Protein backbone atom coordinates (compact mmCIF):
# COMPACT_ATOMS: atom_id res chain seq x y z
CA UNK A 1 0.00 0.00 0.00
CA UNK A 2 1.31 3.42 -0.93
CA UNK A 3 -0.20 6.53 0.58
CA UNK A 4 1.24 9.53 -1.20
CA UNK A 5 1.69 12.67 0.87
CA UNK A 6 0.34 15.29 -1.50
CA UNK A 7 0.07 18.13 0.98
CA UNK A 8 1.38 18.87 4.46
CA UNK A 9 0.98 21.56 7.09
CA UNK A 10 2.47 22.03 10.50
CA UNK A 11 1.82 24.41 13.36
CA UNK A 12 4.39 23.91 16.10
CA UNK A 13 6.55 25.76 18.61
CA UNK A 14 8.75 26.63 15.63
CA UNK A 15 8.25 28.92 12.66
CA UNK A 16 7.22 25.89 10.70
CA UNK A 17 4.96 27.52 8.17
CA UNK A 18 7.90 28.31 5.85
CA UNK A 19 10.37 25.67 7.01
CA UNK A 20 12.86 28.34 8.14
CA UNK A 21 13.15 26.73 11.56
CA UNK A 22 15.36 24.09 10.04
CA UNK A 23 18.09 26.69 9.74
CA UNK A 24 16.91 29.18 12.37
CA UNK A 25 15.20 27.31 15.20
CA UNK A 26 13.43 29.16 17.96
CA UNK A 27 15.04 28.77 21.33
CA UNK A 28 13.30 28.75 24.66
CA UNK A 29 15.23 28.56 27.88
CA UNK A 30 12.84 30.07 30.39
CA UNK A 31 10.34 27.31 30.95
CA UNK A 32 9.85 23.58 30.65
CA UNK A 33 7.10 24.11 28.11
CA UNK A 34 7.02 24.79 24.37
CA UNK A 35 3.95 26.56 23.00
CA UNK A 36 2.92 26.76 19.37
CA UNK A 37 3.64 29.85 17.32
CA UNK A 38 0.07 30.68 16.40
CA UNK A 39 -1.05 31.90 13.00
CA UNK A 40 -3.58 34.68 12.47
CA UNK A 41 -6.64 32.50 12.89
CA UNK A 42 -9.03 34.83 11.11
CA UNK A 43 -7.25 34.05 7.86
CA UNK A 44 -8.34 30.44 8.17
CA UNK A 45 -11.46 30.29 10.31
CA UNK A 46 -14.89 31.83 9.98
CA UNK A 47 -14.90 34.58 12.67
CA UNK A 48 -18.41 33.74 13.88
CA UNK A 49 -17.36 30.15 14.53
CA UNK A 50 -14.02 31.26 15.98
CA UNK A 51 -15.58 32.79 19.07
CA UNK A 52 -16.41 29.44 20.64
CA UNK A 53 -13.23 27.63 19.79
CA UNK A 54 -10.60 26.58 22.25
CA UNK A 55 -6.87 26.62 21.51
CA UNK A 56 -6.72 23.07 20.16
CA UNK A 57 -9.72 23.56 17.88
CA UNK A 58 -8.17 26.71 16.43
CA UNK A 59 -4.85 24.94 15.93
CA UNK A 60 -6.59 22.05 14.19
CA UNK A 61 -8.75 24.22 11.98
CA UNK A 62 -5.91 26.48 10.91
CA UNK A 63 -3.50 23.61 10.23
CA UNK A 64 -6.09 21.63 8.28
CA UNK A 65 -7.07 24.71 6.27
CA UNK A 66 -3.42 25.40 5.37
CA UNK A 67 -3.06 21.78 4.28
CA UNK A 68 -6.20 21.82 2.14
CA UNK A 69 -5.49 25.23 0.56
CA UNK A 70 -2.42 23.81 -1.12
CA UNK A 71 -4.64 21.42 -3.05
CA UNK A 72 -7.69 23.51 -3.81
CA UNK A 73 -9.10 20.97 -6.27
CA UNK A 74 -9.09 18.14 -3.77
CA UNK A 75 -12.04 17.49 -1.45
CA UNK A 76 -10.89 14.95 1.14
CA UNK A 77 -13.35 12.09 1.46
CA UNK A 78 -12.37 11.46 5.06
CA UNK A 79 -11.28 13.50 8.07
CA UNK A 80 -9.25 11.35 10.45
CA UNK A 81 -7.80 12.86 13.60
CA UNK A 82 -5.45 11.40 16.16
CA UNK A 83 -5.26 13.31 19.42
CA UNK A 84 -4.06 11.96 22.74
CA UNK A 85 -5.63 14.65 24.86
CA UNK A 86 -8.24 15.89 22.39
CA UNK A 87 -10.16 18.92 23.62
CA UNK A 88 -8.56 18.96 27.00
CA UNK A 89 -8.75 22.64 27.92
CA UNK A 90 -12.54 22.66 27.67
CA UNK A 91 -12.77 19.37 29.52
CA UNK A 92 -10.68 20.87 32.32
CA UNK A 93 -12.76 24.02 32.33
CA UNK A 94 -16.04 22.15 32.63
CA UNK A 95 -14.69 19.78 35.30
CA UNK A 96 -13.77 22.82 37.38
CA UNK A 97 -17.13 24.52 36.70
CA UNK A 98 -19.08 21.51 37.96
CA UNK A 99 -17.22 21.91 41.24
CA UNK A 100 -17.34 25.73 41.40
CA UNK A 101 -21.02 26.11 40.49
CA UNK A 102 -21.99 23.25 42.83
CA UNK A 103 -23.82 21.61 39.92
CA UNK A 104 -26.08 24.62 39.43
CA UNK A 105 -26.82 25.79 35.88
CA UNK A 106 -23.56 25.72 33.95
CA UNK A 107 -22.55 27.33 30.65
CA UNK A 108 -22.87 24.62 27.98
CA UNK A 109 -20.08 25.66 25.62
CA UNK A 110 -17.12 24.10 27.43
CA UNK A 111 -19.11 20.87 27.71
CA UNK A 112 -19.93 20.84 24.01
CA UNK A 113 -16.35 21.64 23.09
CA UNK A 114 -14.97 19.00 25.42
CA UNK A 115 -16.23 16.24 23.10
CA UNK A 116 -13.10 14.50 21.84
CA UNK A 117 -14.21 14.73 18.22
CA UNK A 118 -14.68 18.52 18.20
CA UNK A 119 -11.69 19.25 15.92
CA UNK A 120 -12.76 16.67 13.32
CA UNK A 121 -16.36 17.87 13.56
CA UNK A 122 -15.43 21.52 13.13
CA UNK A 123 -13.27 20.73 10.12
CA UNK A 124 -16.26 18.93 8.62
CA UNK A 125 -18.58 21.81 9.41
CA UNK A 126 -16.31 24.62 8.22
CA UNK A 127 -15.46 22.90 4.95
CA UNK A 128 -18.75 21.02 4.50
CA UNK A 129 -16.92 17.70 4.38
CA UNK A 130 -19.73 15.22 4.89
CA UNK A 131 -17.68 12.07 4.39
CA UNK A 132 -16.09 9.66 6.85
CA UNK A 133 -15.16 11.39 10.10
CA UNK A 134 -13.40 9.84 13.06
CA UNK A 135 -11.19 10.67 16.04
CA UNK A 136 -8.72 8.36 17.75
CA UNK A 137 -7.67 9.11 21.31
CA UNK A 138 -5.17 6.52 22.33
CA UNK A 139 -2.37 8.12 24.30
CA UNK A 140 0.95 7.97 22.38
CA UNK A 141 -0.56 5.78 19.65
CA UNK A 142 -3.30 8.20 18.60
CA UNK A 143 -1.71 9.51 15.42
CA UNK A 144 -0.64 6.03 14.32
CA UNK A 145 -4.21 4.79 14.85
CA UNK A 146 -5.44 7.59 12.60
CA UNK A 147 -2.81 6.77 10.01
CA UNK A 148 -3.79 3.10 10.03
CA UNK A 149 -7.40 4.11 9.37
CA UNK A 150 -6.27 6.37 6.52
CA UNK A 151 -4.57 3.34 4.94
CA UNK A 152 -7.80 1.39 5.22
CA UNK A 153 -9.76 4.24 3.62
CA UNK A 154 -7.36 4.39 0.67
CA UNK A 155 -7.49 0.62 0.25
CA UNK A 156 -11.28 0.82 0.20
CA UNK A 157 -12.82 3.26 -2.21
CA UNK A 158 -11.35 6.66 -1.31
CA UNK A 159 -8.79 8.68 -3.24
CA UNK A 160 -7.89 11.48 -0.83
CA UNK A 161 -8.06 11.61 2.95
CA UNK A 162 -7.12 14.29 5.45
CA UNK A 163 -5.17 12.97 8.44
CA UNK A 164 -4.05 15.03 11.40
CA UNK A 165 -2.10 14.61 14.61
CA UNK A 166 -2.89 17.27 17.16
CA UNK A 167 -2.45 17.96 20.84
CA UNK A 168 -2.59 21.08 22.95
CA UNK A 169 -0.64 21.93 26.05
CA UNK A 170 -2.59 23.02 29.09
CA UNK A 171 -1.42 24.27 32.41
CA UNK A 172 -3.59 21.83 34.38
CA UNK A 173 -2.26 18.92 32.39
CA UNK A 174 1.31 20.12 32.91
CA UNK A 175 0.78 20.07 36.67
CA UNK A 176 -0.99 16.71 36.72
CA UNK A 177 1.78 15.04 34.70
CA UNK A 178 4.29 16.80 36.88
CA UNK A 179 3.14 14.65 39.80
CA UNK A 180 4.19 11.66 37.73
CA UNK A 181 7.63 13.20 37.10
CA UNK A 182 7.11 13.71 33.40
CA UNK A 183 8.72 17.15 33.00
CA UNK A 184 12.11 18.71 33.71
CA UNK A 185 12.33 20.34 37.12
CA UNK A 186 14.61 23.12 35.84
CA UNK A 187 14.16 25.03 32.59
CA UNK A 188 16.57 24.07 29.85
CA UNK A 189 17.42 25.55 26.48
CA UNK A 190 15.47 23.26 24.17
CA UNK A 191 18.45 22.86 21.85
CA UNK A 192 20.35 21.38 24.82
CA UNK A 193 17.57 18.89 25.57
CA UNK A 194 19.76 15.87 24.87
CA UNK A 195 22.70 17.02 27.02
CA UNK A 196 23.16 15.54 30.48
CA UNK A 197 20.96 12.98 32.19
CA UNK A 198 17.67 14.07 33.71
CA UNK A 199 14.42 12.28 34.43
CA UNK A 200 12.04 14.72 32.69
CA UNK A 201 11.37 16.30 29.31
CA UNK A 202 9.77 19.46 27.87
CA UNK A 203 6.01 19.77 27.49
CA UNK A 204 5.14 20.57 23.87
CA UNK A 205 2.22 20.75 21.48
CA UNK A 206 1.49 20.85 17.79
CA UNK A 207 -0.79 20.19 14.85
CA UNK A 208 0.33 18.45 11.67
CA UNK A 209 -1.96 17.60 8.79
CA UNK A 210 -1.48 15.55 5.65
CA UNK A 211 -3.52 14.88 2.58
CA UNK A 212 -2.82 11.27 1.72
CA UNK A 213 -3.75 9.98 -1.68
CA UNK A 214 -3.58 6.67 -3.45
CA UNK A 215 -2.33 8.44 -6.53
CA UNK A 216 1.04 10.02 -7.05
CA UNK A 217 1.05 13.58 -8.31
CA UNK A 218 3.77 15.99 -9.40
CA UNK A 219 3.60 17.54 -5.97
CA UNK A 220 3.89 14.30 -3.98
CA UNK A 221 6.44 14.86 -1.22
CA UNK A 222 6.86 11.28 -0.09
CA UNK A 223 4.79 8.22 0.45
CA UNK A 224 3.85 6.40 3.62
CA UNK A 225 4.10 2.66 3.15
CA UNK A 226 3.38 1.26 6.58
CA UNK A 227 2.47 1.86 10.19
CA UNK A 228 2.79 -0.56 13.09
CA UNK A 229 2.06 -0.32 16.80
CA UNK A 230 2.92 -2.43 19.80
CA UNK A 231 1.47 -2.29 23.28
CA UNK A 232 3.67 -4.23 25.66
CA UNK A 233 4.36 -3.10 29.23
CA UNK A 234 8.03 -3.36 30.30
CA UNK A 235 9.15 -4.24 26.82
CA UNK A 236 12.84 -4.91 26.24
CA UNK A 237 14.99 -3.93 23.30
CA UNK A 238 14.70 -7.52 22.08
CA UNK A 239 10.90 -7.15 21.95
CA UNK A 240 11.23 -3.90 20.00
CA UNK A 241 13.78 -5.23 17.52
CA UNK A 242 11.79 -8.36 16.97
CA UNK A 243 8.63 -6.35 16.32
CA UNK A 244 10.50 -4.10 13.90
CA UNK A 245 11.90 -7.08 12.07
CA UNK A 246 8.42 -8.56 11.63
CA UNK A 247 7.10 -5.20 10.44
CA UNK A 248 9.90 -4.64 7.93
CA UNK A 249 9.71 -8.20 6.71
CA UNK A 250 6.07 -7.64 5.77
CA UNK A 251 7.40 -4.97 3.44
CA UNK A 252 10.20 -7.27 2.25
CA UNK A 253 12.73 -5.00 3.95
CA UNK A 254 15.34 -5.16 6.69
CA UNK A 255 17.06 -2.49 8.79
CA UNK A 256 19.78 -2.22 6.11
CA UNK A 257 17.19 -0.79 3.73
CA UNK A 258 16.47 2.22 5.95
CA UNK A 259 18.53 5.32 5.20
CA UNK A 260 17.28 7.50 8.01
CA UNK A 261 15.94 6.64 11.44
CA UNK A 262 13.95 9.42 13.13
CA UNK A 263 13.77 8.67 16.83
CA UNK A 264 11.48 10.10 19.47
CA UNK A 265 14.18 10.74 22.08
CA UNK A 266 12.88 13.38 24.47
CA UNK A 267 15.83 14.04 26.77
CA UNK A 268 14.42 12.09 29.67
CA UNK A 269 16.60 9.26 30.91
CA UNK A 270 13.43 7.37 31.86
CA UNK A 271 12.41 7.19 28.18
CA UNK A 272 15.68 7.42 26.36
CA UNK A 273 17.56 4.33 27.51
CA UNK A 274 15.50 2.20 25.15
CA UNK A 275 16.34 4.53 22.25
CA UNK A 276 20.02 4.26 23.22
CA UNK A 277 19.86 0.48 22.93
CA UNK A 278 17.92 0.81 19.68
CA UNK A 279 20.60 3.07 18.18
CA UNK A 280 23.32 0.54 18.92
CA UNK A 281 21.86 -1.78 16.33
CA UNK A 282 21.30 0.77 13.58
CA UNK A 283 23.67 0.17 10.63
CA UNK A 284 26.58 2.64 10.69
CA UNK A 285 25.91 3.94 7.19
CA UNK A 286 22.38 5.08 8.10
CA UNK A 287 21.54 8.53 9.43
CA UNK A 288 19.90 9.16 12.82
CA UNK A 289 17.74 12.21 13.57
CA UNK A 290 15.89 13.54 16.61
CA UNK A 291 13.10 16.13 16.63
CA UNK A 292 11.63 16.67 20.09
CA UNK A 293 14.07 19.48 20.93
CA UNK A 294 12.07 21.48 18.40
CA UNK A 295 8.53 20.65 19.49
CA UNK A 296 8.67 19.18 22.98
CA UNK A 297 6.99 15.96 24.01
CA UNK A 298 3.32 15.45 23.24
CA UNK A 299 1.21 12.43 22.48
CA UNK A 300 0.95 12.93 18.73
CA UNK A 301 4.48 14.25 18.16
CA UNK A 302 5.09 11.48 15.63
CA UNK A 303 3.01 13.61 13.27
CA UNK A 304 5.75 16.28 13.59
CA UNK A 305 8.25 13.53 12.78
CA UNK A 306 6.22 12.57 9.72
CA UNK A 307 6.40 16.18 8.53
CA UNK A 308 10.20 16.01 9.00
CA UNK A 309 10.39 12.72 7.12
CA UNK A 310 8.42 14.06 4.16
CA UNK A 311 10.63 17.15 4.13
CA UNK A 312 13.82 15.07 4.06
CA UNK A 313 12.51 12.69 1.40
CA UNK A 314 11.34 15.49 -0.88
CA UNK A 315 14.42 17.72 -0.43
CA UNK A 316 16.85 14.77 -0.26
CA UNK A 317 18.77 16.49 2.51
CA UNK A 318 18.89 16.17 6.27
CA UNK A 319 19.23 19.53 8.09
CA UNK A 320 21.95 19.73 10.76
CA UNK A 321 19.50 20.81 13.40
CA UNK A 322 17.84 17.38 13.24
CA UNK A 323 20.96 15.29 12.81
CA UNK A 324 22.24 13.24 15.70
CA UNK A 325 24.52 11.01 13.65
CA UNK A 326 25.29 11.61 10.01
CA UNK A 327 25.66 8.40 8.06
CA UNK A 328 27.42 7.81 4.77
CA UNK A 329 24.40 7.32 2.55
CA UNK A 330 23.96 9.90 -0.17
CA UNK A 331 20.31 9.39 -1.02
CA UNK A 332 17.28 9.12 1.16
CA UNK A 333 15.07 6.32 -0.14
CA UNK A 334 13.43 5.12 3.04
CA UNK A 335 12.81 6.64 6.45
CA UNK A 336 11.66 4.89 9.60
CA UNK A 337 10.11 6.82 12.49
CA UNK A 338 10.29 5.09 15.86
CA UNK A 339 8.51 6.66 18.81
CA UNK A 340 7.74 5.04 22.15
CA UNK A 341 6.36 5.96 25.53
CA UNK A 342 7.58 4.54 28.82
CA UNK A 343 8.73 1.32 27.21
CA UNK A 344 5.10 0.36 26.79
CA UNK A 345 3.60 1.97 23.68
CA UNK A 346 5.75 1.69 20.55
CA UNK A 347 5.05 2.88 17.02
CA UNK A 348 6.82 2.60 13.69
CA UNK A 349 5.99 4.62 10.59
CA UNK A 350 7.69 3.73 7.32
CA UNK A 351 8.06 6.24 4.49
CA UNK A 352 9.59 6.15 1.03
CA UNK A 353 10.59 8.59 -1.64
CA UNK A 354 7.59 9.37 -3.82
Amino acid at each position, binding site marked *: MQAYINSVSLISPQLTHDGSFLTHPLVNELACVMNCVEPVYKEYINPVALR*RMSHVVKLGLAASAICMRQLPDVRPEAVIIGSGLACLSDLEKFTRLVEEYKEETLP*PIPFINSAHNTVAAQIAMQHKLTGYNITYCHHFLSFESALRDAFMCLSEDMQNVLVGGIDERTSDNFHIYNIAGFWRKEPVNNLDLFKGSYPGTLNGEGAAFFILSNEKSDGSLACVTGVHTLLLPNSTIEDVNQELEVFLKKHSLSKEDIDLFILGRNGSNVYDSLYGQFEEEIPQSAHIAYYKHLCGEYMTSSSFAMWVASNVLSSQSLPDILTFRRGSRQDFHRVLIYNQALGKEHAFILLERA
Partner: protein
Amino acid sequence: MKEEELIEKLKAEIIEQLSLEDITPADIDADAPLFVEGLGLDSIDAIELTHLLDRNYGIKLEDPKARREVLASVRSMAQLIAKQGK
Protein backbone atom coordinates in the same frame (compact mmCIF):
# COMPACT_ATOMS: atom_id res chain seq x y z
CA MET B 1 -31.82 52.94 34.75
CA LYS B 2 -33.17 54.29 31.50
CA GLU B 3 -33.96 51.82 28.75
CA GLU B 4 -31.17 53.12 26.48
CA GLU B 5 -28.60 52.84 29.28
CA LEU B 6 -29.78 49.35 30.06
CA ILE B 7 -29.49 48.44 26.40
CA GLU B 8 -25.85 49.58 26.28
CA LYS B 9 -25.03 47.67 29.46
CA LEU B 10 -26.74 44.57 28.12
CA LYS B 11 -24.88 44.77 24.80
CA ALA B 12 -21.57 44.73 26.65
CA GLU B 13 -22.70 41.77 28.73
CA ILE B 14 -23.85 39.86 25.65
CA ILE B 15 -20.54 40.46 23.91
CA GLU B 16 -18.69 39.11 26.92
CA GLN B 17 -20.97 36.14 27.56
CA LEU B 18 -20.92 34.99 23.95
CA SER B 19 -17.23 35.84 23.30
CA LEU B 20 -18.17 38.05 20.34
CA GLU B 21 -14.58 39.24 20.10
CA ASP B 22 -14.80 41.39 17.01
CA ILE B 23 -18.11 43.00 17.74
CA THR B 24 -18.54 46.32 19.56
CA PRO B 25 -21.77 47.49 21.23
CA ALA B 26 -22.20 49.95 18.36
CA ASP B 27 -22.36 47.03 15.91
CA ILE B 28 -25.44 45.62 17.60
CA ASP B 29 -28.78 47.05 16.55
CA ALA B 30 -31.01 46.96 19.65
CA ASP B 31 -34.07 46.25 17.53
CA ALA B 32 -32.59 43.71 15.13
CA PRO B 33 -33.27 40.02 15.63
CA LEU B 34 -30.46 38.39 17.61
CA PHE B 35 -31.00 34.94 16.19
CA VAL B 36 -30.41 33.59 12.70
CA GLU B 37 -30.40 37.07 11.13
CA GLY B 38 -28.70 40.01 12.85
CA LEU B 39 -25.91 38.56 14.98
CA GLY B 40 -26.69 35.08 13.70
CA LEU B 41 -26.91 33.43 17.10
CA ASP B 42 -28.10 29.85 17.65
CA SER B 43 -29.78 27.64 20.24
CA ILE B 44 -26.64 27.36 22.36
CA ASP B 45 -26.39 31.14 22.53
CA ALA B 46 -30.03 31.18 23.66
CA ILE B 47 -29.05 29.03 26.62
CA GLU B 48 -26.12 31.34 27.38
CA LEU B 49 -28.37 34.41 27.25
CA THR B 50 -30.91 32.72 29.51
CA HIS B 51 -28.10 32.12 32.02
CA LEU B 52 -27.06 35.76 31.72
CA LEU B 53 -30.56 36.97 32.58
CA ASP B 54 -30.75 34.57 35.50
CA ARG B 55 -27.34 35.34 36.95
CA ASN B 56 -27.21 39.10 36.42
CA TYR B 57 -30.90 40.00 36.82
CA GLY B 58 -32.55 37.09 38.64
CA ILE B 59 -34.91 36.46 35.73
CA LYS B 60 -35.82 32.83 35.03
CA LEU B 61 -37.05 31.98 31.55
CA GLU B 62 -38.29 28.43 31.57
CA ASP B 63 -41.18 28.51 29.12
CA PRO B 64 -39.75 28.12 25.59
CA LYS B 65 -42.33 30.49 24.07
CA ALA B 66 -41.61 33.24 26.58
CA ARG B 67 -37.90 32.68 25.98
CA ARG B 68 -38.26 33.18 22.25
CA GLU B 69 -40.16 36.42 22.76
CA VAL B 70 -37.76 37.85 25.33
CA LEU B 71 -34.59 36.89 23.44
CA ALA B 72 -35.87 38.32 20.17
CA SER B 73 -33.76 41.48 20.41
CA VAL B 74 -31.64 43.43 22.87
CA ARG B 75 -34.56 45.81 23.34
CA SER B 76 -37.02 43.08 24.27
CA MET B 77 -34.52 41.76 26.81
CA ALA B 78 -34.02 45.24 28.26
CA GLN B 79 -37.76 45.78 28.53
CA LEU B 80 -38.22 42.62 30.54
CA ILE B 81 -35.32 43.51 32.83
CA ALA B 82 -36.84 46.98 33.41
CA LYS B 83 -40.12 45.30 34.36
CA GLN B 84 -38.95 42.30 36.40
CA GLY B 85 -35.22 42.55 37.00
CA LYS B 86 -33.80 42.36 40.50
